[in-house]
């Protein structure tokens, strides 16, 4: 299968891209522009841009023969390409503004299809080339002041584009799943400790954006988001405790009454609805954790404070949840409520498993981060 694209509004050139050209990677982080937990991909980022894989340059001898007018045409073509890229960025931004459910559907479908994976792999590769070409030129142009104002402007413009949403796709391998990563505005993948080595190859404009500390307003919003989550967790705790209390009363009934209770629950509309709602939330919660590293790579290697904030409340809820699960399992053993309790027990158990894996994963990440810092400190010494 092939797809055909024109190269720009003023171009009648069409290019055919064979969509089966590239083997789709199994997971989006197998391409070497993703940040690996070990941090070694920071080293690899340089070699990602393998000169041999870049489009061939003219030799200097050939270049010498090129007329100024051809150079001007090239610059103009870059201007057209920049405008097109900016239009694309606007469309990508539109997608990010869609209602959450719709956006999640679109991005998930793309990210999971073989074709979509191939496209994303291509974006990563082409983005790397673009950043490389842009930064190479920018470095040279800053040495030659007043060199060619138009070209300088174009190079700067491309720097902004490279820092845009397309850069997020290149960096994360996705646009933004159920919750869009707001850090996309600065190609957020790079925003983690130790990215300095990679940053050396990035344009200055990008580096500044990415290093920017959180503003007081952002810190306030974060505090607010954390406090709201803490409140929800408090309520969660209280409700779980209440449910446990009710289940304890059930446990003290006679076996016949327990069975009658279980059967009553099986047919109770509220119970059925509650189980559905809870089960669905558990599934979404699982996904949020499972995809944590992919969705929030910048957090995966951020500070201990961050990981503590993320892990603590979840583990806390897990502990409490276990009691309730136990109570529900007792109910299931009593018989007569298989469908209902099975649903809850399975989803709850699965969530428990995921939370445990998640906890281990983050614990590993924290350990690796410490190893990186140790290595870095040793090297600096």
């Amino acid at each position, binding site marked *: 299968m092939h797809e055909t694209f024109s190269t720009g509004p003023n171009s009648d050139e069409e290019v055919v891209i064979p969509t089966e050209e590239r083997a789709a990677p199994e997971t989006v982080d197998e391409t070497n522009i993703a940040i690996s937990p070990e941090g070694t991909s920071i080293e690899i980022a340089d070699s990602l841009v393998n000169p041999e894989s870049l489009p061939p340059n003219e030799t200097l001898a050939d270049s010498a023969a090129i007329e100024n007018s051809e150079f001007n045409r090239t610059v103009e073509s870059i201007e057209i390409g920049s405008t097109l890229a900016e239009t694309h960025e606007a469309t990508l931004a539109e997608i990010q503004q869609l209602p959450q459910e719709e956006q999640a559907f679109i991005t998930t479908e793309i990210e999971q299809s073989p074709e979509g994976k191939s496209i994303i792999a291509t974006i990563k590769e082409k983005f790397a080339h673009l950043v490389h070409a842009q930064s190479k030129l920018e470095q040279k142009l800053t040495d030659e002041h007043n060199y060619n104002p138009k070209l300088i402007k174009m190079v700067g413009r491309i720097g902004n584009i490279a820092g845009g949403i397309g850069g997020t796709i290149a960096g994360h391998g996705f646009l933004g799943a159920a919750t869009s990563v707001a*850090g996309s505005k600065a190609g957020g993948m790079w925003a983690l400790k130790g990215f300095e080595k990679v940053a050396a190859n990035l344009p200055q404009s990008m580096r500044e954006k990415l290093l920017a500390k959180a503003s007081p307003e952002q810190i306030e*919003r*974060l505090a607010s988001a954390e406090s*709201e*989550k803490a409140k929800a967790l408090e309520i969660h705790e209280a409700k779980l405790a209440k449910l446990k209390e009710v289940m304890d009363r059930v446990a003290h009934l006679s076996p016949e009454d327990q069975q009658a209770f279980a059967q009553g629950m099986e047919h109770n509309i509220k119970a059925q609805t509650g*189980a559905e709602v809870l089960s669905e*939330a558990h599934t979404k919660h699982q996904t*949020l954790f499972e995809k944590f590293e992919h969705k929030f790579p910048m957090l995966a290697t951020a500070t201990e404070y961050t990981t503590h904030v993320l892990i603590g409340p979840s583990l806390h809820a897990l502990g409490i949840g276990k009691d309730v699960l136990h109570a529900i399992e007792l109910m299931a053993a009593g018989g007569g409520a298989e469908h209902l309790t099975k649903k809850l027990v399975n989803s709850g158990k699965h969530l428990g498993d995921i939370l445990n894996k998640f906890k281990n994963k983050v614990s590993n990440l*924290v350990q690796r981060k410490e190893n990186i810092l140790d290595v870095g400190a040793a090297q600096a010494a």
Partner: protein
Amino acid sequence: MNHFDQPQPEPAELTSDQTEALIEFDTAEKDLIEQENFGIDLLIQAAEEELRKIESKN
């Protein structure tokens, strides 16, 4: 497990991007917890209803 038992260290400065990502994550999780709360509420109400039926029979 040690990391979570240790006293919380002085939070290092977060970048703008990290902060936005954290806000997104917290908000997403908060929404899910609220949904779970709603589900648990319904279970509690159902269980209390059924218990009342049984207790009123005895």
